[in-house]
Protein backbone atom coordinates (compact mmCIF):
# COMPACT_ATOMS: atom_id res chain seq x y z
CA UNK A 1 0.00 0.00 0.00
CA UNK A 2 1.62 3.17 -1.19
CA UNK A 3 -0.31 5.63 0.97
CA UNK A 4 0.47 3.58 4.10
CA UNK A 5 4.16 3.74 3.35
CA UNK A 6 3.91 7.46 2.74
CA UNK A 7 2.14 7.95 6.07
CA UNK A 8 4.84 5.99 7.86
CA UNK A 9 7.53 8.06 6.20
CA UNK A 10 5.79 11.26 7.28
CA UNK A 11 5.61 10.04 10.87
CA UNK A 12 9.33 9.22 10.90
CA UNK A 13 10.11 12.61 9.38
CA UNK A 14 7.97 14.31 12.01
CA UNK A 15 9.74 12.47 14.82
CA UNK A 16 13.19 13.25 13.48
CA UNK A 17 12.46 16.94 12.96
CA UNK A 18 10.80 17.18 16.39
CA UNK A 19 13.86 15.76 18.10
CA UNK A 20 16.11 17.95 15.95
CA UNK A 21 14.32 21.11 17.03
CA UNK A 22 14.38 20.01 20.67
CA UNK A 23 18.10 19.26 20.60
CA UNK A 24 18.75 22.65 19.00
CA UNK A 25 16.77 24.44 21.72
CA UNK A 26 18.55 22.56 24.50
CA UNK A 27 21.96 23.30 23.00
CA UNK A 28 21.07 26.98 22.86
CA UNK A 29 19.87 26.96 26.48
CA UNK A 30 22.97 25.20 27.76
CA UNK A 31 25.22 27.76 26.13
CA UNK A 32 23.74 30.42 28.45
CA UNK A 33 24.16 30.88 32.23
CA UNK A 34 21.06 29.08 33.29
CA UNK A 35 21.13 28.48 37.01
CA UNK A 36 21.77 31.91 38.56
CA UNK A 37 24.89 30.52 40.19
CA UNK A 38 27.74 32.97 40.40
CA UNK A 39 31.33 32.93 41.53
CA UNK A 40 32.74 35.77 43.67
CA UNK A 41 34.74 36.93 40.63
CA UNK A 42 31.58 37.34 38.59
CA UNK A 43 30.03 39.33 41.43
CA UNK A 44 33.10 41.53 41.77
CA UNK A 45 32.86 42.26 38.07
CA UNK A 46 29.22 43.19 38.54
CA UNK A 47 27.86 40.43 36.35
CA UNK A 48 25.31 39.28 38.90
CA UNK A 49 21.98 41.08 38.98
CA UNK A 50 21.39 42.95 42.21
CA UNK A 51 18.27 42.62 44.34
CA UNK A 52 17.63 39.24 42.76
CA UNK A 53 17.82 35.92 44.60
CA UNK A 54 21.06 34.33 43.44
CA UNK A 55 23.45 31.70 44.65
CA UNK A 56 27.14 32.18 45.25
CA UNK A 57 29.56 29.36 45.73
CA UNK A 58 33.12 29.33 47.01
CA UNK A 59 35.34 28.76 50.02
CA UNK A 60 35.00 30.50 53.36
CA UNK A 61 38.16 32.63 53.40
CA UNK A 62 40.56 31.98 56.32
CA UNK A 63 40.36 34.43 59.21
CA UNK A 64 37.33 36.33 57.98
CA UNK A 65 34.57 34.84 60.09
CA UNK A 66 33.16 37.38 62.58
CA UNK A 67 30.56 36.09 64.96
CA UNK A 68 28.47 38.49 66.99
CA UNK A 69 28.68 37.09 70.58
CA UNK A 70 25.26 38.60 71.49
CA UNK A 71 23.21 37.17 68.64
CA UNK A 72 23.29 34.67 65.81
CA UNK A 73 24.64 37.25 63.39
CA UNK A 74 27.69 36.20 61.48
CA UNK A 75 29.73 37.70 58.66
CA UNK A 76 32.37 36.05 56.52
CA UNK A 77 34.08 36.25 53.15
CA UNK A 78 33.40 33.78 50.38
CA UNK A 79 36.34 33.51 48.04
CA UNK A 80 37.31 31.84 44.81
CA UNK A 81 40.95 32.83 45.49
CA UNK A 82 40.66 35.73 43.05
CA UNK A 83 37.97 37.87 44.62
CA UNK A 84 36.06 37.93 47.90
CA UNK A 85 32.42 38.62 48.63
CA UNK A 86 31.39 39.76 52.10
CA UNK A 87 28.39 37.73 53.27
CA UNK A 88 26.20 38.53 56.25
CA UNK A 89 23.87 35.99 57.71
CA UNK A 90 21.68 35.59 60.75
CA UNK A 91 20.82 32.08 61.87
CA UNK A 92 22.27 28.74 62.80
CA UNK A 93 25.18 27.64 60.63
CA UNK A 94 25.56 24.00 59.61
CA UNK A 95 28.09 21.85 61.50
CA UNK A 96 30.33 21.58 58.50
CA UNK A 97 30.70 25.36 58.31
CA UNK A 98 34.30 26.38 59.00
CA UNK A 99 37.08 28.36 57.46
CA UNK A 100 38.36 26.83 54.26
CA UNK A 101 35.07 24.99 53.74
CA UNK A 102 33.18 25.08 50.46
CA UNK A 103 29.78 26.76 50.89
CA UNK A 104 26.84 27.79 48.78
CA UNK A 105 25.04 30.88 50.01
CA UNK A 106 21.66 31.97 48.76
CA UNK A 107 20.54 35.54 49.04
CA UNK A 108 20.59 38.99 47.51
CA UNK A 109 23.15 41.69 46.97
CA UNK A 110 22.20 44.77 49.00
CA UNK A 111 24.45 47.83 48.88
CA UNK A 112 27.61 45.92 47.98
CA UNK A 113 27.09 43.22 50.59
CA UNK A 114 25.62 39.81 50.11
CA UNK A 115 22.77 39.21 52.53
CA UNK A 116 22.32 35.50 52.80
CA UNK A 117 19.00 33.90 53.57
CA UNK A 118 20.50 30.43 53.62
CA UNK A 119 24.01 29.06 54.09
CA UNK A 120 24.65 25.54 52.93
CA UNK A 121 27.94 23.73 53.43
CA UNK A 122 28.96 21.91 50.32
CA UNK A 123 31.02 18.83 50.88
CA UNK A 124 32.91 17.34 48.01
CA UNK A 125 32.96 13.79 46.77
CA UNK A 126 36.28 13.14 48.52
CA UNK A 127 36.00 11.16 51.70
CA UNK A 128 39.13 10.61 53.74
CA UNK A 129 40.20 9.82 57.25
CA UNK A 130 41.60 12.71 59.37
CA UNK A 131 45.09 11.18 59.51
CA UNK A 132 45.26 11.35 55.74
CA UNK A 133 44.12 14.95 55.79
CA UNK A 134 46.78 15.73 58.34
CA UNK A 135 49.43 14.05 56.24
CA UNK A 136 48.25 15.91 53.19
CA UNK A 137 48.27 19.19 55.04
CA UNK A 138 51.83 18.62 56.20
CA UNK A 139 52.99 17.84 52.72
CA UNK A 140 51.09 20.84 51.38
CA UNK A 141 49.10 18.70 49.02
CA UNK A 142 45.74 19.47 50.58
CA UNK A 143 45.78 23.11 49.55
CA UNK A 144 46.75 21.98 46.13
CA UNK A 145 43.74 19.68 46.08
CA UNK A 146 41.41 22.32 47.43
CA UNK A 147 42.77 24.87 45.02
CA UNK A 148 42.26 22.42 42.19
CA UNK A 149 38.62 22.07 43.20
CA UNK A 150 37.50 25.48 42.11
Amino acid sequence: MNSKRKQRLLIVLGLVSGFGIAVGLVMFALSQNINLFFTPTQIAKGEAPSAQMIRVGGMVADGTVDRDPQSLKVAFDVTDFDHNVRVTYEGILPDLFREGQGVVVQGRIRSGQFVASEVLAKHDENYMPPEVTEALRQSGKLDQMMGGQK
Partner: protein
Amino acid sequence: MGWRWFHQWGSPRWFYERAGRWQLVCGRLALTLLITGSLWGLAFAPIDYQQGNSYRIIYLHVPVAFLAQALYAAMAVCAVVLFVWKMKLADVAMQSIAIMGFAFTALSLISGAVWGKPTWGTYWVWDARLTSMLILAFLYLGVIGLRAAIQDPDQAGKACGILVLVGVVNLPIIKYSVEWWNTLHQPASLKLTEKPAMPASMWIPLLINILGYYVAAAYLILGSMRAIVLERERRSAWVRELVSRA
Protein backbone atom coordinates in the same frame (compact mmCIF):
# COMPACT_ATOMS: atom_id res chain seq x y z
CA MET B 1 17.51 -24.73 20.07
CA GLY B 2 19.39 -21.62 21.02
CA TRP B 3 16.17 -19.94 22.02
CA ARG B 4 15.05 -22.57 24.45
CA TRP B 5 16.48 -20.80 27.48
CA PHE B 6 14.51 -17.75 26.43
CA HIS B 7 11.22 -19.53 25.94
CA GLN B 8 11.46 -21.18 29.32
CA TRP B 9 10.83 -17.77 30.82
CA GLY B 10 7.37 -17.88 29.28
CA SER B 11 6.43 -20.74 31.55
CA PRO B 12 5.19 -19.54 34.92
CA ARG B 13 5.65 -22.94 36.49
CA TRP B 14 9.26 -23.22 35.39
CA PHE B 15 9.92 -19.74 36.75
CA TYR B 16 8.17 -20.42 40.02
CA GLU B 17 10.25 -23.49 40.75
CA ARG B 18 13.59 -22.02 39.64
CA ALA B 19 13.00 -18.70 41.36
CA GLY B 20 12.54 -20.51 44.65
CA ARG B 21 16.09 -21.85 44.42
CA TRP B 22 17.57 -18.55 43.24
CA GLN B 23 15.83 -16.78 46.05
CA LEU B 24 17.51 -19.01 48.59
CA VAL B 25 20.92 -18.30 47.10
CA CYS B 26 20.26 -14.56 46.91
CA GLY B 27 19.00 -14.47 50.48
CA ARG B 28 22.12 -16.10 51.91
CA LEU B 29 24.47 -14.05 49.76
CA ALA B 30 22.71 -10.80 50.67
CA LEU B 31 22.84 -11.58 54.36
CA THR B 32 26.57 -12.33 54.24
CA LEU B 33 27.43 -9.28 52.17
CA LEU B 34 25.30 -6.87 54.16
CA ILE B 35 26.57 -8.05 57.53
CA THR B 36 30.21 -7.85 56.36
CA GLY B 37 29.82 -4.52 54.58
CA SER B 38 27.78 -2.81 57.26
CA LEU B 39 29.91 -3.98 60.18
CA TRP B 40 33.06 -2.97 58.36
CA GLY B 41 31.62 0.34 57.23
CA LEU B 42 29.99 1.33 60.49
CA ALA B 43 32.55 0.07 62.99
CA PHE B 44 35.91 -0.34 61.32
CA ALA B 45 36.15 2.09 58.42
CA PRO B 46 38.07 5.27 59.37
CA ILE B 47 36.12 8.46 60.07
CA ASP B 48 35.98 11.25 57.53
CA TYR B 49 38.14 14.37 57.93
CA GLN B 50 35.23 16.75 57.31
CA GLN B 51 32.06 15.03 58.34
CA GLY B 52 33.29 12.86 61.19
CA ASN B 53 31.08 9.87 61.78
CA SER B 54 28.00 11.19 60.06
CA TYR B 55 29.38 10.26 56.64
CA ARG B 56 28.84 6.60 57.55
CA ILE B 57 25.29 6.87 56.32
CA ILE B 58 26.71 6.49 52.81
CA TYR B 59 26.81 2.78 53.54
CA LEU B 60 23.02 2.93 53.40
CA HIS B 61 22.30 6.02 51.32
CA VAL B 62 24.53 5.35 48.33
CA PRO B 63 23.49 1.73 47.66
CA VAL B 64 19.84 2.56 48.14
CA ALA B 65 19.99 5.58 45.84
CA PHE B 66 21.78 3.50 43.20
CA LEU B 67 19.09 0.87 43.46
CA ALA B 68 16.24 3.37 43.28
CA GLN B 69 17.43 4.48 39.85
CA ALA B 70 18.63 1.10 38.62
CA LEU B 71 15.27 -0.46 39.43
CA TYR B 72 13.49 2.10 37.27
CA ALA B 73 15.78 1.19 34.39
CA ALA B 74 15.08 -2.48 35.09
CA MET B 75 11.37 -1.73 35.01
CA ALA B 76 11.78 0.01 31.65
CA VAL B 77 13.63 -3.02 30.28
CA CYS B 78 10.76 -5.20 31.49
CA ALA B 79 8.31 -2.88 29.72
CA VAL B 80 10.23 -3.25 26.47
CA VAL B 81 10.33 -7.05 26.87
CA LEU B 82 6.59 -7.02 27.56
CA PHE B 83 5.81 -5.07 24.39
CA VAL B 84 8.29 -6.75 22.07
CA TRP B 85 8.04 -10.39 23.16
CA LYS B 86 4.64 -10.23 24.92
CA MET B 87 6.13 -12.08 27.86
CA LYS B 88 3.79 -12.07 30.84
CA LEU B 89 6.60 -12.66 33.29
CA ALA B 90 8.01 -9.25 32.38
CA ASP B 91 4.74 -7.75 33.56
CA VAL B 92 5.00 -9.66 36.83
CA ALA B 93 8.53 -8.33 37.24
CA MET B 94 7.32 -4.79 36.51
CA GLN B 95 4.69 -5.08 39.20
CA SER B 96 7.09 -6.21 41.91
CA ILE B 97 9.87 -3.83 40.86
CA ALA B 98 7.49 -0.87 41.08
CA ILE B 99 6.78 -1.56 44.74
CA MET B 100 10.41 -2.31 45.66
CA GLY B 101 11.59 0.68 43.63
CA PHE B 102 9.26 2.96 45.53
CA ALA B 103 10.45 1.53 48.84
CA PHE B 104 14.11 2.07 47.94
CA THR B 105 13.46 5.57 46.63
CA ALA B 106 11.67 6.47 49.83
CA LEU B 107 14.55 5.01 51.85
CA SER B 108 17.11 6.99 49.89
CA LEU B 109 15.12 10.20 50.38
CA ILE B 110 14.82 9.57 54.11
CA SER B 111 18.46 8.59 54.59
CA GLY B 112 19.47 11.59 52.49
CA ALA B 113 17.42 13.90 54.69
CA VAL B 114 18.96 12.44 57.83
CA TRP B 115 22.41 12.96 56.34
CA GLY B 116 21.60 16.40 54.97
CA LYS B 117 20.77 17.89 58.37
CA PRO B 118 24.26 17.62 59.92
CA THR B 119 26.23 18.25 56.72
CA TRP B 120 24.22 20.84 54.81
CA GLY B 121 22.26 22.23 57.70
CA THR B 122 18.88 21.28 56.29
CA TYR B 123 16.78 18.16 55.87
CA TRP B 124 15.55 19.15 52.49
CA VAL B 125 16.46 21.57 49.73
CA TRP B 126 14.65 21.97 46.46
CA ASP B 127 17.76 21.12 44.59
CA ALA B 128 17.64 19.43 41.20
CA ARG B 129 19.03 16.10 42.36
CA LEU B 130 16.75 15.84 45.36
CA THR B 131 13.76 17.04 43.41
CA SER B 132 14.34 14.56 40.62
CA MET B 133 14.61 11.79 43.21
CA LEU B 134 11.26 12.93 44.59
CA ILE B 135 9.86 12.85 41.06
CA LEU B 136 11.17 9.31 40.75
CA ALA B 137 9.23 8.40 43.87
CA PHE B 138 6.08 9.93 42.33
CA LEU B 139 6.69 8.02 39.11
CA TYR B 140 6.82 4.76 41.03
CA LEU B 141 3.66 5.77 42.90
CA GLY B 142 1.94 6.54 39.60
CA VAL B 143 2.82 3.11 38.21
CA ILE B 144 1.53 1.44 41.37
CA GLY B 145 -1.65 3.54 41.35
CA LEU B 146 -2.37 2.95 37.68
CA ARG B 147 -2.08 -0.79 38.12
CA ALA B 148 -4.38 -0.69 41.10
CA ALA B 149 -7.03 1.21 39.12
CA ILE B 150 -7.30 -1.17 36.17
CA GLN B 151 -8.93 -4.48 36.85
CA ASP B 152 -7.73 -6.70 34.03
CA PRO B 153 -4.10 -7.61 34.88
CA ASP B 154 -2.95 -7.85 31.23
CA GLN B 155 -4.37 -4.46 30.39
CA ALA B 156 -3.03 -2.92 33.59
CA GLY B 157 0.40 -4.29 32.78
CA LYS B 158 0.46 -2.77 29.32
CA ALA B 159 -0.83 0.59 30.58
CA CYS B 160 1.92 0.63 33.20
CA GLY B 161 4.43 -0.28 30.50
CA ILE B 162 3.46 2.79 28.47
CA LEU B 163 3.72 4.98 31.56
CA VAL B 164 7.11 3.53 32.47
CA LEU B 165 8.51 4.08 28.99
CA VAL B 166 7.32 7.69 28.90
CA GLY B 167 8.82 8.18 32.36
CA VAL B 168 12.20 6.95 31.10
CA VAL B 169 12.63 10.47 29.73
CA ASN B 170 13.08 11.43 33.33
CA LEU B 171 16.00 9.13 34.09
CA PRO B 172 18.57 11.08 32.08
CA ILE B 173 17.32 14.27 33.71
CA ILE B 174 18.01 12.70 37.09
CA LYS B 175 21.38 11.40 35.95
CA TYR B 176 22.65 14.65 34.53
CA SER B 177 20.91 17.08 36.85
CA VAL B 178 24.01 17.30 39.03
CA GLU B 179 26.10 18.35 36.09
CA TRP B 180 23.48 20.60 34.49
CA TRP B 181 22.64 22.59 37.55
CA ASN B 182 25.42 23.56 39.89
CA THR B 183 23.91 21.97 42.91
CA LEU B 184 24.65 21.27 46.48
CA HIS B 185 24.68 17.57 46.00
CA GLN B 186 28.18 16.23 45.48
CA PRO B 187 28.91 14.28 42.31
CA ALA B 188 28.66 10.52 42.54
CA SER B 189 31.27 9.06 44.89
CA LEU B 190 31.91 5.95 42.90
CA LYS B 191 32.33 5.96 39.17
CA LEU B 192 33.01 2.93 37.06
CA THR B 193 35.51 4.75 34.91
CA GLU B 194 37.66 6.38 37.55
CA LYS B 195 39.58 5.46 40.63
CA PRO B 196 37.37 6.15 43.65
CA ALA B 197 37.98 9.41 45.49
CA MET B 198 38.25 7.71 48.84
CA PRO B 199 40.70 5.27 50.40
CA ALA B 200 40.24 1.54 50.01
CA SER B 201 39.28 1.11 53.68
CA MET B 202 36.23 3.28 52.95
CA TRP B 203 35.17 2.20 49.50
CA ILE B 204 35.61 -1.55 49.81
CA PRO B 205 32.89 -1.85 52.48
CA LEU B 206 30.77 0.52 50.38
CA LEU B 207 31.19 -1.71 47.36
CA ILE B 208 30.33 -4.78 49.43
CA ASN B 209 27.22 -3.02 50.69
CA ILE B 210 26.18 -1.94 47.21
CA LEU B 211 26.45 -5.53 46.02
CA GLY B 212 24.66 -6.66 49.15
CA TYR B 213 21.72 -4.31 48.59
CA TYR B 214 21.46 -5.34 44.93
CA VAL B 215 21.31 -8.99 45.87
CA ALA B 216 18.87 -8.23 48.65
CA ALA B 217 16.65 -6.39 46.16
CA ALA B 218 16.85 -9.42 43.86
CA TYR B 219 15.80 -11.59 46.79
CA LEU B 220 12.81 -9.41 47.60
CA ILE B 221 11.75 -9.04 43.97
CA LEU B 222 11.99 -12.76 43.27
CA GLY B 223 9.91 -13.42 46.35
CA SER B 224 7.14 -11.04 45.38
CA MET B 225 7.26 -12.22 41.75
CA ARG B 226 6.69 -15.79 42.93
CA ALA B 227 3.71 -14.64 44.97
CA ILE B 228 2.24 -12.75 42.01
CA VAL B 229 2.77 -15.72 39.67
CA LEU B 230 0.94 -17.97 42.12
CA GLU B 231 -1.95 -15.52 42.36
CA ARG B 232 -2.30 -15.00 38.62
CA GLU B 233 -2.03 -18.71 37.87
CA ARG B 234 -4.37 -19.69 40.68
CA ARG B 235 -6.78 -21.41 38.30
CA SER B 236 -4.13 -23.51 36.57
CA ALA B 237 -3.58 -27.19 37.33
CA TRP B 238 -0.05 -26.93 38.64
CA VAL B 239 -0.93 -24.33 41.27
CA ARG B 240 -3.90 -26.38 42.45
CA GLU B 241 -1.65 -29.40 42.72
CA LEU B 242 0.89 -27.35 44.65
CA VAL B 243 -1.78 -26.12 47.06
CA SER B 244 -3.28 -29.55 47.63
CA ARG B 245 0.16 -30.94 48.38
CA ALA B 246 0.85 -28.26 50.95
